[in-house]
């Protein structure tokens, strides 16, 4: 009997388990997790924070799903993996023997070594426990500082603002959301947020925390300003959970190194989700992969490869479809490319509605080929643009017409019949040969 072991109960882990179970009904599957919950919709945590729904709706699978699918669970922290003997070492001397292993240990939030960074009231937002802690405090405390201006920071700010808190956001860059929100949208969004009552401080971040009786009271910023607060949420990025793999012989760099089949340097050990770093950097840029859908897709592919189906992971371009402050937003491909002055001529930006209203659409072309797109307010055709970017379609001739509502975008994807000319050529060729 084969024993499949999966470290991690996030979307990558559970999707892999499900994929394996669909095709392999009898062999043993065990998931090892350090969280005391069934797997849940992590990406909806900010919604939970906002009070849109309760814990039951947050769960990913119905009750007794694990029993019905015959998936075993171990609630312990993994301390070590020994590839030579095919063993996983658990906290408190437990050992699990595996035949195939999938590491989907996810990522954890980054914090910096700020003075007094361990005071009560300073939180990160990554899992359900964090959200619960923030929620209990947010109902009591009325002043919140959010460190970081990424998508999580914006959504957390929105949620805590809805709960009636006075929110201050400290953003390190000169715009919110750089580089995954385009500059024009960032301006529109920050105006909207400021009008709603959120205090956004650009080019500013934490220098130190101050507290009284082990609880945070002030945040001192790099500009020397002091913000009174009782609750701090840090959202400045995540790093892969790979510390338990150091010295094990499994190849790691920033994340766990895998090939395009999600296989590590050991043939029976795979990795998926946020903890992964691809060996081929052209295939995937590591920062771009840390979101829900790629993790789920990797889980599926890893599950198939564990069953030896030999499927390569095709990620497509980076895309982020979300809602910011209740407004639909789509960001696809390499919209904010790092270019030198020389290369600048190759790029072209076409945008609509930049100066007026809330709606905004923009695309970036490189040598006539579409490489990035950004939609704010309305994104009816965003998925078609993603398709175009995936194919690197040359749209130089009709780029300006793309935003015309009368333009039939779907007609671009019609697969034409092979032209009959080829056969004519062949016949003429043979006739001359005769």
């Amino acid at each position, binding site marked *: 009997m084969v024993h499949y072991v999966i470290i991690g109960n996030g979307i990558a882990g559970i999707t892999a388990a499900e994929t394996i179970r669909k095709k392999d009904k009898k062999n043993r599957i065990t998931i090892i997790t350090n969280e005391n919950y069934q797997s849940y919709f992590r990406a909806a945590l900010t919604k939970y924070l906002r009070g849109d729904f309760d814990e039951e*709706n947050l769960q990913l699978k*119905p009750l007794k799903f694990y029993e019905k699918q015959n998936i075993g669970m171990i609630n312990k922290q993994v301390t070590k993996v020994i590839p030579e003997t095919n063993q996983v070492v658990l906290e408190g001397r437990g050992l699990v023997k595996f035949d195939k292993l999938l590491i989907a240990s996810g990522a954890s939030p980054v914090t910096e070594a700020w003075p007094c960074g361990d005071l009560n009231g300073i939180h990160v937002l990554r899992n359900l426990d964090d959200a619960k802690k923030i929620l209990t405090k947010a109902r009591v405390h009325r002043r919140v500082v959010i460190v970081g201006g990424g998508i999580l920071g914006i959504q957390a700010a929105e949620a805590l603002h809805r709960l009636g808190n006075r929110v201050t956001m400290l953003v390190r860059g000169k715009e919110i959301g750089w580089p995954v929100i385009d500059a024009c949208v960032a301006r529109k969004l920050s105006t909207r947020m400021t009008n709603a009552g959120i205090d956004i401080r650009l080019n500013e971040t934490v220098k130190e925390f101050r507290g009284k009786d082990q609880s945070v009271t002030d945040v001192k910023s790099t500009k020397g300003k002091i913000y009174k607060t009782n609750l701090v949420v840090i959202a400045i990025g995540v790093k892969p959970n790979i510390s338990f793999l150091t010295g094990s012989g499994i190849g790691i760099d920033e994340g766990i190194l895998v090939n395009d089949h999600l296989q590590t340097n050991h043939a029976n050990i795979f990795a998926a989700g946020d903890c992964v770093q691809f060996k081929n950097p052209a295939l995937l840029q590591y920062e771009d992969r840390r979101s829900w859908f790629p993790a789920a897709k990797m889980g*599926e592919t890893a599950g198939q490869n564990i069953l030896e189906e030999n499927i390569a992971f095709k990620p497509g371009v980076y895309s982020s479809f979300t809602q910011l402050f209740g407004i639909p937003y789509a960001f696809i491909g390499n919209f904010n490319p790092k270019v030198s002055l020389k290369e600048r001529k190759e790029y072209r930006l076409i945008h609509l509605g930049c100066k007026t209203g809330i709606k905004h659409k923009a695309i970036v072309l490189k040598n006539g080929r579409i490489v990035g797109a950004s939609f704010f307010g309305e994104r009816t055709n965003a998925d078609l643009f993603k398709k175009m970017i995936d194919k690197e379609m040359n749209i130089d001739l009709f780029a300006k017409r793309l935003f015309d509502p009368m333009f039939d975008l*779907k007609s671009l994807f019609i*697969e034409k*019949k092979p032209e009959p000319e080829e056969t004519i050529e062949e016949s003429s060729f043979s006739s001359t040969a005769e």
Partner: protein
Amino acid sequence: MVSFYDELKDRTNDFLLSCIGCGNCMKVCPISESSNMVIKNLNTATSSPENTPLPESIIEFTHKCFQCGLCNDVCPTNSHREEMMLLLKSKLQSTLPKEYHNKLALKGQNLGFVKNIKQKFAKNKDILGPLLPHYEKRNLKECDTLFYFGCYMLSPTEIQHNTIIIANKLGIDYEILGGLKYCCGMPHYYAGQIDNSEIMHIELLDAINKVNPKVVITSCAECYEALKNLQRKMGASFQPMTTTEWILKNINNLQLKKLSDKVMFHESCIYKRKENMREHGPEVIRKVADLKEFQNIKSANLCCGNLRCDHDPEGLSTLHDKKLQAAKTTGKMCVECVHCWENFADDASRHGITLTDITTLVVNALIDKSEGLEQPKEARPKEIFEGEN
């Protein structure tokens, strides 16, 4: 070519993986049962293999879903919940309500029951009028322009007659393809009988190829989607066109006066959300009448509910009430698709709202009506359709 079912399954798989469980889709859903739905149960049901026993509430909800696509607009990950519901519907074929079967059994060349077709035809024969010789015609001539009327040839609307009046006015050469036999197959697709639908697409393509047209024009949103499918997936060489688009293209050749009517415009779900063709209708209306926008966006987006195949008519009627209430500001609502007309007809007369359509507006706006095949009449009541089976 990938089969329709496999294509749907592949796409839906990605949607399921990208679902982050925010529950926005169930919040905007116009069906009242949606408030009890939990995303985890719905997703698990959708990904479960066929013939898995499912809770009654999910089965009921699935058959009530009419694919309006409101859920698509609010999804943070841009997924299509309506397509996931369609996959679930196709897995639940064994529990399909009888209203669906009654409606679908009439249609198709090999799938329809001959007896039922004859009954229905006998009842609706006088509707055809001058179109009678074209009904389910076999000897089709080759022609550049084909009017594809499909099953709506027997519909109590005036749209098909008006289309012919406009065509005669333009003086073009055309051929007509229509009748229950030449159904496009989209009603079957949206009822979850996806393989049947594919067969009917192939049969339709054979019939159209006899005519070998350059453009195929239809007034039905479902037929239009089928024609687009033929073009996209089956390599058909013709250009599908909606009647509205065709009118807009030829509007300079028609001598039109501006009417004094103030009309609200009801957009078809398929044109709007699936084909991204929302601009043609308003454009034509602005040329011939006074267009008023729906104020309340939520009720303006409500769908006619045709794709539910007459299942649970009372529930649908209450949904229509919201929309028609919003239309009372002008008292006149204009539709683009034949099925929107059919579904709204009864409820509109109950609310005292005049239901009209784009072709009727254009024909009324014609300065010289003499060359037409027939003068436009007041639309006939819907009773003709009732009492079948």
